[in-house]
């Protein structure tokens, strides 16, 4: 019996050693769950400026963003007013590929193919994929360390999309240890670090932490895009009809 107990203890010890990555896996999942649980607002309207800096030339774009959640689904519309009038519509549903449309300056509306999600969004350093909702269950997480981002102690979590068709091979997300906010994301394509998103100037609006400045910078330093929220209104009434392809075409 004792022998049997010793074997059981040994198995338990081996099992503990074996599952230690699983424990960190659980920790990563727990951290990301807390991150995911931070309120983001049922709906919002944002006035935004996008600066695209490439080869020393800065392009300024301005747009109004509308977004509304229904359950876990979210629909977002971005209406560009400067320099040209264009529109971008995103439908996100859990378990489904994000649907996106672009309204060109001539008035035509085009559906964006799913593999075009890795293409630059409005000629910036953001990709089309970056403006769609991310669902926590679509990714595998692993806690790979801790690091400070601009003086904020953060968990460093590796995130890999489950299944095929991922835009990025992996991302490394920096989550604040105290507030569970996202402060930085490193994006990798084919295992190579290609760009970094930095979220700064967090402000609390109706208990919704909001990063007013998002900077997506190429890893080689050759250009970046800055997205700045000039004003935002949360939990406002947005008519569902405004967030349809038919409304985009009008």
């Amino acid at each position: 019996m004792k022998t049997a107990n010793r074997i059981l203890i040994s198995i338990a010890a081996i099992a503990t050693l074996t599952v230690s990555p699983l424990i960190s896996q659980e920790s990563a999942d727990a951290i990301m769950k807390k991150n995911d649980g931070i309120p983001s607002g049922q709906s919002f309207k944002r006035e935004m400026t996008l600066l695209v800096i490439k080869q020393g030339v800065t392009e300024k774009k301005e747009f109004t963003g509308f977004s509304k959640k229904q359950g876990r689904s979210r629909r977002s519309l971005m209406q560009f007013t400067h320099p040209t009038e264009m529109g971008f519509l995103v439908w996100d549903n859990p378990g489904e590929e994000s649907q996106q449309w672009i309204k060109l300056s001539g008035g035509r509306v085009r559906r964006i193919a799913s593999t075009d999600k890795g293409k630059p969004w409005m000629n910036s350093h953001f990709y089309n994929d970056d403006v769609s909702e991310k669902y926590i269950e679509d990714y595998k997480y692993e806690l790979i360390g801790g690091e400070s981002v601009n003086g904020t102690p953060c968990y460093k979590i590796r995130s890999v999309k489950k299944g095929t068709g991922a835009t990025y091979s992996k991302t490394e997300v920096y989550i604040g240890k105290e507030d569970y906010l996202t402060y930085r994301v490193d994006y990798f394509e084919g295992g190579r670090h290609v760009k970094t998103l930095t979220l700064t100037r967090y402000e609390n609006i109706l208990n919704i932490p909001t990063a007013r400045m998002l900077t997506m910078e190429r890893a080689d330093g050759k250009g970046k895009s800055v997205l700045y929220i000039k004003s935002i209104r949360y939990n406002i009434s947005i008519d569902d009809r405004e967030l349809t392809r038919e409304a985009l075409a009008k």
Partner: protein
Amino acid sequence: MIIALCKKDIRSDTTDNNISTSRIRAFTAPGIFKQAVVAPLLVATMISFADLHAQQQPEDSPARQEQDDLMSLLKESPKNSFDLKGFAEISSDTGLSDNEYGEQSFYNMGARTKFRPAYSSQKFKAYADIDFFAKSYSHVKEYSFETSEFYIEGGNSLLWKTGKQRFNWGVADIFSIVNPMDQIDLRESFARDNDEKFCGVYALRLTYIKGDYAIEAAARPVTEPLMRPAGFYAIHADLQDTPAGTVTPGYKDSDAERKIKNAAFALRGGGTTSGLDWHLFVYSGPQPRSAYSSTLERTDTGLNLTMEPIFDRVTIIGVDAAFAMGKLNTRFEGIYSPDMVASEKIDDQQKTVAMSQIMGGSDSALLQDGTSRNYYSYGVGADYNLWGNYGTVYCEWMQARFVDESDIEKELQSDILALRIEDSFFSQALNLSAGSMIRIDNMSAGYALTTEAEYDFKNGLTATAGAYYFVPNSDTYMQLFEDMNMIYLRMRFSF
């Protein structure tokens, strides 16, 4: 304490403009707070700058300098109800073959200024799209202005739009088949943007959106042909010298002659279902394609062949759909009409009858009339991302047919395959494209080649160079373009 005050105030506020206000409340006197409420936008800007400048950056550091530069660019633009956009463009076309004036090569200079003023209020939006053209051809100078759009729109549950407007129906990239409400502009042979491919028309449009679907009703008075220029396709190369003399063809397409007194109505519905964007429509109005009646008329010098466009009322039903499958974006457009009018074919017997009437003393004789037939047209297209972010190939095929074509002139714009490949370089500053249109009508197909290079200086200035080259062979359709071989250069400044 100050932090605590800020947090408390933040929780009670609803917008980030008010957040700025709350911070002012924490730091400044009540008088300033009142001012902030009156002008929250201004305060938001002030505080954004104040916050940024308070960040821990040495004043002369490059990072601080960069941040200052960025923030000056991010500075709040003044919110205006009135907005003015547009561009100024200069262009030159150099012909590579005989043009319609018999010149071996022609050289045209042009200037164009487009203004797009817009006014928005809570209840409505007013918008205009106005072009001023100045063209200097080898033989003539021309000044004109066009109002492509001039409308007001508004509404809440029921959207309304009235005035001169473009409908932009359809999903095709090259051949528009399901857009009978707009006036097709054929002056730019290879225009890709809808604002170059279509002229606006005076119309009233009502749209009701429910869920992901919309239904749209539209009405427009029709006072001029649905294509510009009106006589584009009508050419009778086979009728020149006759026993009664040389025939001079002419079109009744002066402003007064091509006036139409009619109206068009359309109903269109559609939306998005399981990833498929689709629309169905029914149209009743003057036919959007060209058909002609032709009359021989005796003159002192010979015979005139006068061709008069027919714009009889027709019924059209149509469908368009778009669907994305992985890297492939697919599109379909199709229409059917039970009563589209075609021009009768001029056969030897008709020529003989008409000539005998003229020789017998009649001043005129009808040579060709229009006749109604079953008609269909469809186009299928796709684009596929071949490489990188922008290396894309576009392909589109269109066909148009009358069900019985034995005694009528076949639809000229049919059986055309269009291919285009494009890519961008240097962060989308340099855009290159090359394409071909092949008319697959007989063994000796005519084709066209196009190429274009555009450089975007990213400061509003773009420079474009391109060329068209047509190889018509024995194809009647491509022969319409054979004097249009050219190289063009454009410089455009957008504001």
